């Protein structure tokens, strides 16, 4: 157990240092959300209407771009080989890395979401609910992205391949995340059902992601 905790702390420490890229995700989120009013125009009613969707899309894209970082540096300096040949099961190792990745990349997205919601004229009273949906959904994005990251590090082809592999798998998370957020803000539909399905997706990906990623690493790097 202490091995996994040590691995998590190592990853978190590396992420917040120079070149770690922990807050880059949050910065990208900010930039994307700022771009939207330039594209759709400053009509506040329209922005309020699409606000939750834009926040969710921005969070998705920011998570996606940070996924490169998950395995690439470890693969390059040989730590990944050490992790794979260690006695700790590879599934737990990648799960620990994913948790550390979410804490340094996903959690900042949730924290700055209220500020960005302000820019998109999202109703502040429901901002808490929206943050809750992001809090429940960003782990799913990280753990599903874990699969794509493991597949593309094995092939040493970064960039768009990762996005092409991961995005179709994250569509359900996006659908239910936005449904829950809009239910909290406007909708006649209740918040509960969509939110619980979102939590279910996160829990399911928490199990499936590490197993699929470990398989991808084992078979891809052998």
């Amino acid at each position: 157990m202490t091995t996994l905790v040590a691995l998590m702390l190592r990853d978190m420490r590396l992420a917040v240092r120079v070149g770690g890229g922990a807050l880059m995700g949050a910065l990208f989120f900010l930039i994307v959300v700022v771009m939207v009013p330039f594209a759709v125009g400053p009509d506040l009613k329209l922005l309020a209407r699409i606000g939750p969707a834009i926040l969710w899309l921005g969070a998705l894209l920011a998570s996606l771009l940070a996924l490169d970082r998950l395995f690439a540096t470890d693969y390059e300096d040989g730590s990944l080989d050490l992790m794979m040949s260690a006695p700790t099961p590879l599934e737990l190792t990648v799960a620990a890395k994913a948790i550390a990745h979410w804490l340094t990349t996903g959690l900042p997205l949730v924290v700055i979401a209220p500020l960005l919601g302000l820019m998109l004229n999202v109703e502040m009273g429901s901002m808490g609910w929206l943050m809750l949906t992001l809090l429940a959904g960003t782990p799913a994005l990280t753990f599903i992205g874990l699969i794509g990251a493991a597949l593309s590090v094995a092939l040493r082809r970064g960039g768009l391949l990762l996005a092409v592999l991961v995005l179709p798998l994250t569509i359900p998370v996006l659908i239910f995340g936005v449904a829950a957020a809009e239910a909290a803000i406007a909708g006649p539909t209740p918040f509960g059902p969509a939110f619980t399905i979102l939590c279910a997706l996160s829990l399911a990906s928490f199990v499936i992601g590490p197993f699929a990623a470990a398989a991808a690493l084992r078979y891809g790097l052998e």
Partner: protein
Amino acid sequence: MAVIDLANPTRFLSLVNRVLPWLALATLIVFVVGLYRAMGAPDDYQQGATVKIMFLHVPAAWLGMLGWALMSVAALGTLVWRHPLADVAGKAAAPIGAAFTFICLVTGSLWGRPTWGTYWVWDARLTSVLVLLLLYLGVLALYWTAEDPGRGSRAAAVLTLVGAVNLPIIKFSVDWWNTLHQPASILRMGGSAIDPSILAPLLIMAAAFTLLFFTLLLAAMRNEILRRRVRTMRLMQAREMPA
């Protein structure tokens, strides 16, 4: 010759060379019969003759899903049983399944325009089939960007198994959600809801599409084996060249 002998690529190639012409002939015959019966089927009382797109649309949808199911079995063969030809089968099936899924979406869209009034709608069935197409494209991207065929196939096999969760979602999407797309009318509790005069040509067309799938699959597997042999020979030749 036992099935296990087919694991030998040379034996497999000789089998394909013997079987493929007959399979192609059978495909042609069943297609002709199917199209003849489809042309003779009665018009729908509401949709008129446009209902005949169904004879292309529904079998294409079934084959798109069958393609992914077959790829999933091939993926298990690659990862679990280490069958030598499993990854060849998976790599060969991917473009064919993707093509059938694309045909399903296009024919469905053309059918939707006169009957629903729109080319596209974001209901559960259409969206999940579109996601299936995106997953196919993702797997194709994996196969085609890997330099080493073996490594690429193993990665693609993992992705195939992860994406297999989409198949039951497609099948049951029209039952779980209230959608514009018609609910299940053939494989459902209580038996089929289609009149036999339309069901029979539909099943014949489905058989024709399936035969076409397997004809194309065997031909593609043969091509892939030969392609890998050419690659190996090139590598050997490069190794022997003076430095």
